[in-house]
């Protein structure tokens, strides 16, 4: 063996040292293999083996990707979002209140005694939430579903899902599905462990089919000391606080707020005089959805459409903590704000407000804030706030009683003095109001309000509210006092003066402020002033009277200049009043244009042409120069040579990069700047192209990516564009952005709204977009709900929840035919969608709605119905008129018939009607078709018609036409919030006739024909038999009908004959004769009888004799036959023998 080994020594492998292979290997080893993926090291192994399989893999991957894609939406969540609304929904007695209490306790570590209305709490550094409980009223359920971000759906596990849960889920589906988490309670009621498991499982699966499979369902296993288990609640609260939300289309286009505080600021005196007087109500809440425009109309669910008469924002009553680097919330930052529950410093009594001062954290917070603001103020360069806002800030400081006094504090005082003077002036003008205000100040509320003013940061509007009360005519006294008032002061001065004043102020505030910024601010403000005039900024609503008031003041001031200027303005206005409208730049007067051919002027615009000199960042020569300058860094690009992409991408990238650099660059970019830029670009490039694993075939998602990028860009722009605008102007331009806490004043609210206020009902205020406050005909598609027991009838009142509104209306159902005609239907079809028209508020297309037949909580009715949601659907179209056609069959009868022409009557009532139908097709029952020709003169409404064949007099003629049905103009909002407390769920609108009759016990008269009566059967009476005379002649006399003796009269005749019978009295002789005749007759009869009997006997005897003879005869014959037969057989046998 060893020898073998020696001889069998194999040649060792000798690697090539030169040649193609060696070069290849060398090249390969140059690149560091260690951090390459297998795919890169050995690309052949990963090459496509089977085209079909690769195609399938690719297709599957693309499918998965496509499934994940959604249409990119512009993210509209503001930087500081409003608290999320967490609604706790469920049937009564499942533990909703307990859950809320426990959640609050777990989040902010305090016990809350009463939970009424929305409760806002700070849950984390970035998130707040508003907890609200939904009571067992379908109206509340609808409103909650419209505003909730997250719904905790509580369910009593020992009972199972109740109808309310399914109803609520259905409502949610219609109005935009919020996030839903199920919570099972009362699990401790199920003692059997196996049963418990089963219950959990079945409930979970039922829940999944309703929401989506995999929806989160929580189990709260039991109550200990009236509380759920702590770690279960903790778990739940963790889930809540990391919940993410997807935007819903309705809320992406509408602003809304859930009011969490309500004040009635009507004059107490007028209430005393007339308790039913319409009220001025102030509602507070966080703006949600999209920015709320100042003068948009709103709908208060359960009350109706309202116009906001004043809208302003307030400091956040429950602010997020400052963005300091901390892991957890500080104890004092865990705030709660729930005015309806009497938490958060304010307790509400019937007609007074009590403020708890000690427990409030707001005080401290305020301090902190102000300190920070002070720090900010010191270097104003960073702050982008304008004077007005800073004034506001200083104002707060003043009231907070914070320790430090600023250098400009003095100015403030001055200003305040000024202001009070101003007010005094006004009050002199209106001495009556002065006294009024005095008397008002005496009332207790005012005092308390003053207190709030001092203590609570969000209440700084109270004073101005007072002012509103006091001086009804001074409408310019609006919210954050300082800002507004300083404006007034300024506006009463000259414009120039104002400017100067402003500048001085600004200098006072910060010397460091860059002049450029102010200049820019000023110029921009000037243009806006030019366009919008003296608009007020921010926190006030514009009032038309104001300007007049100002001009009055000016006149009082006695400035002649002012007066003349106003006159001039008026004169100019008058001149412009009736000018011809023209959209040109030089509208009517043609100015003398600059002579552009002049060399000096020519220079001005020479650079507007492509032939002119470009700006530095676009000029090719400059760019080239720049490239040369930065050539030193170009090595950087050397190190990424991609196998496939390399060259091409590099080239593209370069030009792109050039552009980007140059566009951002100033005239002389420093080298470091260029370097920076290039590094950044390289990183971007690397991210895009240097992904080592991505050598697979990829689908083209550029369309989707572009959409996404566009949406992202837009959302960034939305966030950034107004960022450094001062708040007042920003609100003016953008509206009240979501997250702001606003105060809205409504004038002329019904008094029932205040007197019957119940905080357990959600107070949803939804803004209406353009044209949505108008009313028109809405066409929508609708489907009766499968679980609803009845079918819906046309023109039966229906309560519809659409958009923000709930209203009752009279719908008409129809079906869209193939020619797009709406054919009237009397009832909704069972399981298919149909069309529905109703008269109601104009709402954008594709908005979902649901329909109910009743919203009242009458348990009887609910039990009868089972499921209350009658139908669901969505809006198709809005119009100001409708075209619903109902089939109509007109019926007529022939009057006279000629060959193929016939006169038809009874189809129309007048010649005019006929004229309308000339040429229409008609048809007889037997199917003969024809046409209406012309009206006849004589019977009104008759006409001539021709047919394809001769019709019969007995034919009925039809004309099939359409009849337009009008939609009844009935629209009644559900005003359940105005109903008395405890009765709010009993709203009843229009009733059907049937309902009314049932209620009043009105019965229809029953059909006579349907009634049961005694059956009387008359005997059949036949007609007399009449024999024709001719026939009678031929009959024998016996059969001839005798004179007036008919079968019919036989019965009747007898008595009459008897009655006519005359008694015949015979003479004795005749008597004798008749006696003899009688005797003879008797004798004869006897004789005949005897003879008959004897004859019978005789015949009998004779028959017997004859029979015997017959027998004899037969006997003989038989014997003879026998004889003969014997003989015959003998003979035959003989014959056989012979043979």
């Amino acid at each position, binding site marked *: 063996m060893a020898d073998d080994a020696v001889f069998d020594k194999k040649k060792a492998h000798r690697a090539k040292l030169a040649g193609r292979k060696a070069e290849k290997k060398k090249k390969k080893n140059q690149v560091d293999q260690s951090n390459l993926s297998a795919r890169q090291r050995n690309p052949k192994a990963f090459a496509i083996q089977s085209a079909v399989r690769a195609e399938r893999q690719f297709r599957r991957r693309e499918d998965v990707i496509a499934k994940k894609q959604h249409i990119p939406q*512009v993210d509209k969540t503001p930087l500081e979002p409003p608290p999320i609304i967490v609604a706790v929904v469920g049937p009564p007695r499942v533990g909703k209140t307990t859950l809320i209490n426990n959640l609050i306790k777990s989040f902010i570590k305090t016990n809350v005694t009463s939970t009424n209305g929305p409760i806002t709490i700070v849950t984390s550094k970035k998130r707040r939430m508003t907890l609200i409980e939904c009571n067992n009223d379908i109206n509340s359920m609808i409103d909650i579903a419209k505003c909730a971000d997250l719904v905790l759906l509580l369910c009593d596990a020992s009972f199972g899902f109740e109808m309310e849960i399914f109803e609520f889920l259905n409502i949610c589906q219609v109005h935009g599905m919020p996030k839903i988490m199920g919570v099972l309670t009362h699990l401790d009621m199920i003692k059997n462990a196996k049963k418990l498991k089963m219950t959990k499982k079945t409930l979970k699966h039922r829940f999944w089919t309703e929401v989506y499979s995999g929806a989160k369902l929580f189990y709260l296993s039991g109550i200990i000391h009236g509380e759920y288990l702590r770690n279960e609640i903790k778990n739940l609260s963790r889930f809540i606080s990391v919940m993410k939300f997807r935007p819903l289309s309705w809320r992406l*286009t509408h602003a809304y707020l859930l009011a969490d505080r309500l004040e009635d600021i009507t004059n107490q005196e007028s209430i005393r005089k007339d308790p039913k007087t319409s009220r001025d109500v102030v509602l507070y809440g966080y703006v949600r959805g999209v*920015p709320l*425009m100042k*003068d*948009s109309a709103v709908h208060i669910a359960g009350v109706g459409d309202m116009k906001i008469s004043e809208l302003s924002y307030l400091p956040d009553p429950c602010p997020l903590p400052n963005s300091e680097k901390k892991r957890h919330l500080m104890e004092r930052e865990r705030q709660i704000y729930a005015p309806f529950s009497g938490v958060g410093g304010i307790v509400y009594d019937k007609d007074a407000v009590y403020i708890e001062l000690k427990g409030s954290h707001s005080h401290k917070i305020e301090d902190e804030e102000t300190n920070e603001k002070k720090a900010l103020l010191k270097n104003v360069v960073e702050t982008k706030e304008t004077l007005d806002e800073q004034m506001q800030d200083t104002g707060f400081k003043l009231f907070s009683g914070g320790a430090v006094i600023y250098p400009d504090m003095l100015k403030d005082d001055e200003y305040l003095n000024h202001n009070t003077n101003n007010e005094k002036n006004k009050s002199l003008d209106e001495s009556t109001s002065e006294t009024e205000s005095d008397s008002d100040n005496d009332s207790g509320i005012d005092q308390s309000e003053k207190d709030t003013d001092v203590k609570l940061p969000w209440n700084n509007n109270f004073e101005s509210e007072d002012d509103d009360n006091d001086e009804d005519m001074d409408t310019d006294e609006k919210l954050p006092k300082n800002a507004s008032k300083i404006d007034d002061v300024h506006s009463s001065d000259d414009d120039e003066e104002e400017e100067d004043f402003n500048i001085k102020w600004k200098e006072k505030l910060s010397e460091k402020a860059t002049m450029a910024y102010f200049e*820019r601010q000023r*110029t*921009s403000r000037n*243009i*806006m002033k*030019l*366009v*919008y*005039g003296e608009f007020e900024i921010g926190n006030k609503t514009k009032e038309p009277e104001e300007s007049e008031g100002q001009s009055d003041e000016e006149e009082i001031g006695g400035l002649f200049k002012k007066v003349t200027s106003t006159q001039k303005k008026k004169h100019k*206005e008058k001149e*412009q*009043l*009736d000018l011809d*409208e*023209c*959209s*040109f*730049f030089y509208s*009517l007067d043609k100015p003398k*244009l*600059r*002579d*552009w*051919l002049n060399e000096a002027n*020519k220079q*001005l*615009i020479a*650079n*507007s*042409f*492509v*032939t002119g000199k470009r*700006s*530095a*960042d676009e000029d090719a020569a400059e760019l080239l120069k720049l490239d040369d300058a930065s050539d030193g860094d170009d090595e950087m690009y050397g190190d990424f040579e991609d196998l496939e992409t390399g060259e091409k991408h590099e080239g593209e990238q370069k030009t792109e990069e050039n552009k980007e650099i140059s566009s951002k660059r*100033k*005239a002389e970019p420093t080298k470091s700047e260029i370097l920076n830029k290039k590094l950044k670009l390289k990183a971007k490039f690397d991210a895009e192209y240097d992904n080592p694993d991505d050598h697979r075939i990829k689908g083209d998602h550029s369309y989707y990516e572009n959409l996404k990028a566009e949406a992202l860009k*837009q959302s960034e*722009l*939305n966030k950034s*564009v*107004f960022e450094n*605008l001062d708040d007042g102007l920003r609100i003016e*331009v953008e509206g009240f952005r979501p997250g702001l806490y606003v105060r809205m004043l409504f004038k002329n609210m019904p008094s029932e709204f205040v007197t019957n206020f119940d905080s357990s009902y959600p107070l949803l205020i939804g803004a209406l*977009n*353009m*044209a949505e406050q108008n009313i*028109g005909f809405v066409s929508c598609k609708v489907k009766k709900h499968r679980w609803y027991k009845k079918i819906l009838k046309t023109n039966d009142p229906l309560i519809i929840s659409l958009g923000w509104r709930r209203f009752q209306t009279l719908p008409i159902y129809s079906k869209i035919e193939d020619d797009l005609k709406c054919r009237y239907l009397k009832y909704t079809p069972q399981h298919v969608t149909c069309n529905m028209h109703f008269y109601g508020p*104009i709402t954008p*297309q594709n908005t979902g709605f649901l329909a109910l037949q009743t919203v009242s909580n009458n348990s009887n009715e609910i039990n009868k119905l089972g499921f209350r949601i009658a139908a669901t659907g969505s809006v*198709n*179209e809005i*119009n*100001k008129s409708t075209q619903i056609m109902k089939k109509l069959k007109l019926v007529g009868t022939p009057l006279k018939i000629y060959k193929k022409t016939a006169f038809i009557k009874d189809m129309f009532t007048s010649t005019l009607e006929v004229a309308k139908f000339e040429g229409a097709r008609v048809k007889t029952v037997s199917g003969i078709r024809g046409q209406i020709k012309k009206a006849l003169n004589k019977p009104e409404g008759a006409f001539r018609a021709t047919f394809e064949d001769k019709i019969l007099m007995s034919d009925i003629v039809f004309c099939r036409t359409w009849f337009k049905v009008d939609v009844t103009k009935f629209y009644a909002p559900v005003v359940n919030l105005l109903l008395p407390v405890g009765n709010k769920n009993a709203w009843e609108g229009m009733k059907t006739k049937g309902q009314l009759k049932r209620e009043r016990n009105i019965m229809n008269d029953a059909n006579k024909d349907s009634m049961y009566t005694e059956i009387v059967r008359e005997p059949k009476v036949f007609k007399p038999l009449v024999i024709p005379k001719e026939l009678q002649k031929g009959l024998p006399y016996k059969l001839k009908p005798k004179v007036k003796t008919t079968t019919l009269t036989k019965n009747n005749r007898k008595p009459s004959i008897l009655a006519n019978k005359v008694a015949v009295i015979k003479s004795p002789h005749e008597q004798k004769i008749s006696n003899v005749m009688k005797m003879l007759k008797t004798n004869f009869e006897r004789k005949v009888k005897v003879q008959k009997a004897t004859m019978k006997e005789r015949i009998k005897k004779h028959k017997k004799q004859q029979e015997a003879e017959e027998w004899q005869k037969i006997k003989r014959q038989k014997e003879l036959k026998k004889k003969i037969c014997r003989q015959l057989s003998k003979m035959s046998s003989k014959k056989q023998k012979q043979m």
Partner: protein
Amino acid sequence: MPATVHNDVLIYKGSNLFRQRLLLSTLSGRSIKIVEIRSSHDDPGLKEYEVNLIRLLDKITNGSRVELSETGTSMYYQPGILIGGQVSHSCSTQRGIGYYLEVLLALGPFCKEPLNAVLQGVTHHNLDVSVDKVKAAALPILLKFILVDDGLELKVVRRGAPPLGGGEIVFKCPVRRHLRPLQWTKWGLVKRIRGVVYALRVSPTMANRVVEAAKGVMLKFLPDVYINTDQCRGPNAGKSPGFGVSLVAETNENTFYCAEAKSAESGAGETTLPEELGRACALTLLDEIHRAGAVDSAFQWLVALWMALGQKDVSECVVGPLSEYTIKFLQHLKEFFGVMFKLEALTDDDEDSSEDEDKVTTAQKIKMTCVGIGYVNISKRTL
């Protein structure tokens, strides 16, 4: 003149800006009342062309209500729903078709059915934008908002000069559910100049002379100048004689500036020299180019309108100095829709530093920024 609001009805005074008010009222669905219409004039009340406009609005809407007082000095207008569709309208010859066309252009995207309007009347008028200008400068703007051009079209079938008119155009506009937000802050440099010269019932040489003059001016700035002549004959030439020119400057960022000039009316007694006309038009165009901005100054208001009617997103556009008409329009936008623009005069920092001598003379640029009101086309049908 700010409106007073009474019962949610906006009350205006005077006949000025009549068209703006009706237009905005129709879009916003808010009723308006206009009082004191030429009440102190010798000829009080609405003029024929204004009544004609009301008729046109009535044709393209459903459910509008117009109440005129007996003297015609006050009117009440309750807008209906925009229907659009096939419309044929003979415009008043007191104003050009442009007067009506601009309204249709503004309303077009919000109709129920795509608009297909045939307008007859004066195609070129001193007070109004000509149809050429709308076609050249306004349609590209609309295209920026609707993005896809499915049937946006303006066809000049016949031209008609004042006073008798006789022109005819066909305007088609697609409908949209909502407009896209627009960011348009660059307008680039003028890269080509095009133009049309028309001669109606006058000698064709007139047109050629106009071309020569206009070209003469423009060639001093740019070599790429082409001006077509449109010699209309027979019925295509309308009913009155006249000639005119419109020049369009296109930039490399798809901005179109348009200037136009036309001869004086035939009966006026004054004569217009074609050379002068051409030169005047060219100078107007240069003026327009000097003012710059992303849109032509005559259509600033259209951009403002469509920006305001966009989705609830930020739109930006840089325009030249605001025209008086645009300022009025912005005020009206605020009154009808409550939308306020942030207007910012741009200081061209780059130019300041590089070319100081230029700084003084460049026309003011204004950056208009607004958040759309989230207007949706409520009349469109969904299936």
